[in-house]
């Protein structure tokens, strides 16, 4: 017979590859981020333990705060539109699912396809469409605006491109939420004479509440992690108005080789994201 010892041995062997990768590429870097943030270090060398000095600098660093402000501005422009539009798309796909399954599948495909594109494909297409002189958007609007170097427009345009690119995923979550609503609830509502918008208000909307909370928080976390879009489309400009927190962290570490300070930025960023993740868990638990 096999004993506990044999089972422990097998478990060790089965877990070894994953745990090795996990420790080397996640756990150690996570602990190192904390340690680095307390040192003065370059990208390749750790020099001096400086305690909380990096954090003291961080609190008074206007570049950090402006990058955080830009990050939240991007989130403000994306989170609610992405969630609301995702819901609208899901309702449309679901609306046709009952009687026109084929049309519904095409619709879902059209809304979701941009989501699977690599980020640089999305940005290349956006850049081409928004070219000042030959871009189709300016052609249609009859203007010659350089969208990405316009202080007022750079961030909203990045936000719109992001909405086009990623809304499909939120739609998917709402579709799953809609399919999880028991049919009996709709039948009962129909018996009670509820129609059209009343059904949505009293059955669909309350049932979708947990999905909506999940979508909002996941979207907020995703939006706070923005980096690629702004980096590729505007390289943080014009006048740093689109330089987001991760961009600032990247610059500090990789162009100024100030890894200690970059780690402090990373810790601040991590704190915000983890707090939001916990908030979501809390909100969902409360509703259960």
């Amino acid at each position, binding site marked *: 017979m096999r004993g506990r010892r044999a089972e*422990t041995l097998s*478990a060790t062997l089965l877990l070894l590859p994953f745990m090795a990768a996990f420790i080397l590429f996640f756990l150690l870097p996570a602990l190192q981020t904390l340690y680095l943030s307390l040192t003065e270090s370059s*990208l390749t060398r750790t020099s001096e333990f400086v305690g909380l000095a990096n954090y003291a600098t961080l609190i008074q660093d206007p570049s950090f705060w402006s990058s955080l402000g830009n990050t939240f501005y991007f989130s403000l422009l994306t989170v609610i539109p992405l969630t609301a539009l995702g819901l609208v798309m899901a309702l449309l796909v679901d609306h046709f699912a009952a009687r026109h399954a084929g049309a519904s599948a095409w619709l879902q495909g059209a809304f979701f396809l*941009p989501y699977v*594109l*690599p980020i640089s494909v999305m940005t290349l297409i956006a850049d*081409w469409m928004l070219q000042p002189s*030959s871009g189709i958007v300016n052609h249609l609007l009859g203007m010659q605006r350089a969208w990405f170097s316009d202080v007022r427009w750079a961030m909203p345009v990045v936000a719109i491109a992001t909405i*086009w690119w990623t809304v499909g995923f939120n739609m998917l979550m709402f579709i799953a939420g809609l399919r999880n609503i028991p049919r009996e609830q709709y039948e009962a509502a129909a018996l009670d004479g509820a129609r059209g918008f009343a059904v949505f208000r009293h059955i669909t909307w309350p049932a979708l509440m947990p999905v909506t909370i999940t979508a909002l928080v996941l979207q907020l976390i995703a939006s706070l992690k923005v980096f690629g879009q702004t980096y590729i489309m505007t390289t943080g400009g014009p006048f740093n108005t689109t330089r987001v927190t991760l961009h600032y962290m990247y610059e500090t570490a990789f162009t100024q080789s100030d890894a200690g300070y970059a780690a402090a930025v990373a810790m601040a960023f991590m704190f915000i994201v983890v707090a939001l993740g916990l908030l979501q868990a809390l909100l969902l638990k409360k509703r259960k």
Partner: protein
Amino acid sequence: MKTTPLHWTVIAIASALGLAMLWVAPLLWALSTSLRPEYETILPTLHLLPQRWTVEAFTRTLGAGNVPRWLFNSALVALAVTVVTMAISLMAAFAFSQLRFRGRNALFLLSMLALLLPFEALLVPLFRTMNGLGMINTYAGIVLPQVVSPMVIYVFRQFFDAVPHDFRDAALLDGASPLRVLWSVYLPMSGNIVWAMAIVTFIAAWNNFLWPFIIVTSNDMMTIPLGLTQTYDAFGVRYAQLMAAALLGAFPVALAYIVFQRRVTQGLLAATGLKG
């Protein structure tokens, strides 16, 4: 619902068509651009369709520069990430789900911690680690940090937990090793979810921009999403060629999505914990 009033149906059809057109228009415009000769992209008048149809942009993109090399790198990296992630995650999930050993729950919770901490915050020490291991500009350097996917383990573990224990006990009594049980008893039962997670992992690895951006500096080692950001230098402002390169870079994932639509959505939903 059978009682939907007519005006709702009209509104639904109109907004569905309008939104769908808005959503595919940029892709169609990119396709239309890629099928033109270069001079047509800078004409002062706008034509939705090419005046002269040509695949020149595609042949030039594939014939010159680094695009084929980047596509090859992406294929290699995405396949390696997928195979390794699936292998180590299946083994780990099986151990977490089916084997009894000390510290099992603690280890599992520790790995799940990675779901909470953003990868982006670990970039600096991760770069230092890889630098120390001499893995800058290597395939191993691009692949390895991407294979740590606690989410995949979580999904697999949930799946394994739902399998009745009798299957495992019977096989173990017959003297089969745990790896053997995983391979010939559990895997065949979990085919769907393994495929779903594999396709989602492949698409994510193909599309990953941030990590290759950090770890790769040489043109030869770039993956296509990274390489595409360099194409201005390579092509100048040649939009037909840029759009051709973009479409070539998107083709494998778009194809994977179109062919495996259901699995992609199933995998993504499993990943967010909305559906097992």
